[in-house]
């Protein structure tokens, strides 16, 4: 399972890419593979504020609906509209075109609360 070294991760299977005072967020390759074919994505509202671990998006597969959480406290400044027309991007390019939203974060220090690739690999049993 692909777990890029240059990203951070959450227990709930989001990946985080730092871009200055913002973070780009999606779900991991492992998560998309567990969810199976994604058929619908409910994006968060622009400018919405969220606390860390607050559910702000929903990814629906054929089988079930799953909440996606804000990894850190922040404000939604970008959402991936492409997912509305092509939710399968999450399955095909989970770390690329399948990103879900961008948060402007209040406190960059909080990034240290997230997992690095090694810790996430361990969590999903990838050694």
């Amino acid at each position, binding site marked *: 399972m692909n777990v890029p070294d240059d990203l951070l991760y959450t227990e*709930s299977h989001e990946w985080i890419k730092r871009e200055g005072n913002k973070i780009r967020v999606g779900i991991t390759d492992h998560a998309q593979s567990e969810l*199976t074919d994604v058929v619908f994505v409910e994006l968060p509202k622009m400018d919405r504020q969220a606390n860390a671990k607050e559910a702000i998006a929903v990814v629906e597969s054929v089988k079930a609906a799953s909440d996606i959480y804000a990894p850190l406290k922040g404000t939604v400044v970008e959402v991936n509209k492409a997912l509305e027309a092509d939710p399968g991007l999450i399955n095909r390019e989970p770390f690329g075109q399948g990103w879900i939203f961008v948060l402007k974060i209040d406190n960059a220090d909080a990034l240290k609360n997230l997992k690095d690739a090694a810790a996430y690999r361990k969590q999903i049993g990838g050694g």
Partner: protein
Amino acid sequence: MRSTRPLAWAVNEPAQKKTPLYDEHVKRGAKMVPFAGWLMPVQYTGIVEEHQAVRNNVGIFDISHMGQFVISGSGAATWLNTMLTNSIEKLDVGQGQYTFLLNDAAGIIDDLIVYRIGDTKFLLVVNAACVEEDFAWLGRHRSDNVNLGDRSAHFGGVAIQGPRVAELFVNLPARNHIVDVEMEGMSVSIARTGYTGEDGIEVFFFAKDAANFWNTVLEKGKDLGIKPCGLGARDTLRLEMCYPLNGSDLSPKRNPIEAGLGFFVDLTKPNFIGRDILLKTKENGLREKLVPFKMQGKGPPPRPHYSVFENGERIGEVTSGTQSPSLNWGVGMAYIKASHARIGAKIEIEIRGQKFPATIEKKPLYKKS
């Protein structure tokens, strides 16, 4: 209550029973999940891909978790006719029928297929989650000259489903019929039935032959595009056909008439458990009815327990829902107030606090063009 759930991993669940095909599923990379006390494949490569394989070519499913009872004896036919809703007397030797096991209130304990495999011998194929309850219920009501056996632990089974199934075997039995044959040194029973809406068979064999049979079929079916399929595709395929799933669309609180399955209830039989209540239900009219529906626009797919509205009034609840892979559209079934159950009626499904338009449809939701 939010109906969404956080990502959770089935692999951390406590120990579950394994079918005789468990190792084959793992070898072929299936994602295993707990289902009705069993560890079953939910998918191999993807639900949509497996679904399409069954609609277009052929797919094979492990159904070894289902229960198999053998009922025999000079009193078997007469007694079974009082335990099940459909008419056993309609069955010739080698023929099967869909039927219900009801409780005293006419609620559904289980839906099952009964085959007459001898003059006084019957095979019942029941839902995995209901094996113990069904067997106990039958045992409690057993009458003289009836032998009741549960052979579930010693047998496995597969469903082979799809329009090309008849290219894989010759001399298949007719629809709803069952035959015993020898294949590749294995004794198997082949029944022309299924849960997908496609032509297909269900095959039962000794547990020791399971892996051999499974691998032989996959090898022989290669050129037909056969795929091993999981419970995910089994669910989307059955829902497109509006076949009910016990535990979701059927329950001890629902009767077959409410579920729209009165066709499998023979009220002309003089006596069977639940008959009097069903007659009363028919006389007094239904309170609620199970109806299929289709979402009107692109949006989130419907899911079990979502509320159903018409003109602002809450009229019922979804029991099954998914994104139909054949239609690429949200579909489902819901119990709604019977007075609202009109084909073509505009309803709304509430999803995460927002109402989305849908239409009540005729069965089935998917028809082959």
